[in-house]
């Protein structure tokens, strides 16, 4: 269908969905989030980036004639006929306070913060409910056997939506435990990115201070000129390209 030459309005095909038990007819191409707005709901909660990464719009739904529980992010999931849904914008989850600087990068840190970790019965409800396909049971198992690194890697895609905690038989807040693991792994176990440390050192040493101070007093047009005339890596260039000007970097 060439939308550029469309001359008449075509009504969108609508399907019935149930939002918190109430039936609505919504255009079938909409995401759950758009469908709810189409139906008159105005979001003040349970909506964030609209891009599938912030974890605010976790949605639980069922399909007609099917006992199973399905989940998805409202901003990413397209509606289906007879979809029966609600959102879980927030689920109470125990979050321990701790001092990162003094925390040891070992699993025992998590055992002390979250002793309920050992209440896991491996029911797998967490993995089944995760809208990001994170293998939650696998990272909880990794934590129980003391492997922080594996837990950090397995939980990488977690967006902290809280659905796992809502279904957990052991009443754990899995995603908070995984966050501690990722923080300890990133900051205290993984090898440091030397180039990053060097760059931070250069910044602290004042290498860019003059450039920044100069930019602060430029007009919008001057900034635009500097930006458009900047040296850029060619799109189709030689493999070995280095900038002519080093801007004070070693």
């Amino acid at each position: 269908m060439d939308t550029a030459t469309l001359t008449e309005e075509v009504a969108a095909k609508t399907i019935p969905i149930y939002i918190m038990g109430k039936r609505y007819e919504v255009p079938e191409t909409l995401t759950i989030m758009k469908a709810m707005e189409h139906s008159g709901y105005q979001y003040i909660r349970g909506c964030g980036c609209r891009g599938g990464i912030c974890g605010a719009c976790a949605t639980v739904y069922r399909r007609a004639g099917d006992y199973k529980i399905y989940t998805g992010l409202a901003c990413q999931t397209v509606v289906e006929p007879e979809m029966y849904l609600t959102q879980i914008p927030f689920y109470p989850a125990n979050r321990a306070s701790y001092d990162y600087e003094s925390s040891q990068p070992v699993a025992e840190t998590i055992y002390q913060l979250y002793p309920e970790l050992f209440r896991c019965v491996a029911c797998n409800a967490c993995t089944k409910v995760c809208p990001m396909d994170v293998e939650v049971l696998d990272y909880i198992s990794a934590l129980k056997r003391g492997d922080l690194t594996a837990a950090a890697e397995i939980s990488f895609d977690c967006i902290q939506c809280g659905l796992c905690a809502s279904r957990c038989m052991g009443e754990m807040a899995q995603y908070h435990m995984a966050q501690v693991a990722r923080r300890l792994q990133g900051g205290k176990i993984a090898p440091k990115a030397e180039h990053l440390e060097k760059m931070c050192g250069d910044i602290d040493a004042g290498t860019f201070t003059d450039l920044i101070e100069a930019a602060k007093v430029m007009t919008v047009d001057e900034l635009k000129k500097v930006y458009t005339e900047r040296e850029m890596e060619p799109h189709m260039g030689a493999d070995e390209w280095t900038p002519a000007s080093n801007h004070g970097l070693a």
Partner: protein
Amino acid sequence: MASIPSPIHPENLKAVNKIAEISGQNVHECMQCGTCSAVCPMVESMGFTTRLGILYLQFGEIEPVLKAQIGEFCASCHTCVVQCPRGIDVARVFEAVRQYVLRTNTDLIKPQEIPKDTMAEAPQIAFVSTFRKLTS
């Protein structure tokens, strides 16, 4: 025709049935020989012996058994199980007594109250088994 009165008080019948259902054991088969008490490694910590506990359960009297903390001090060692001359799985009976409480969403131990040193020092199986047996 007059029915033979049961020695179990009607109010206790519910408890008796619950214990039988969860444990799959018939406590009325117990002949009160006391072997389970003799071999129980934790009996000295309990308010009274496992034998007396079974006797109470035969009458559906759960409260005294709970007060004596028999289920709480039981270590699930299964010595009673292999020694009972009647073949009663006594460990299952006291698991049922624990479950009778745990299933009311009541914990018999609080994970948050375990000393932090112990959390760092003890093997993982210590916590997994403690929480499975004593938390709901």
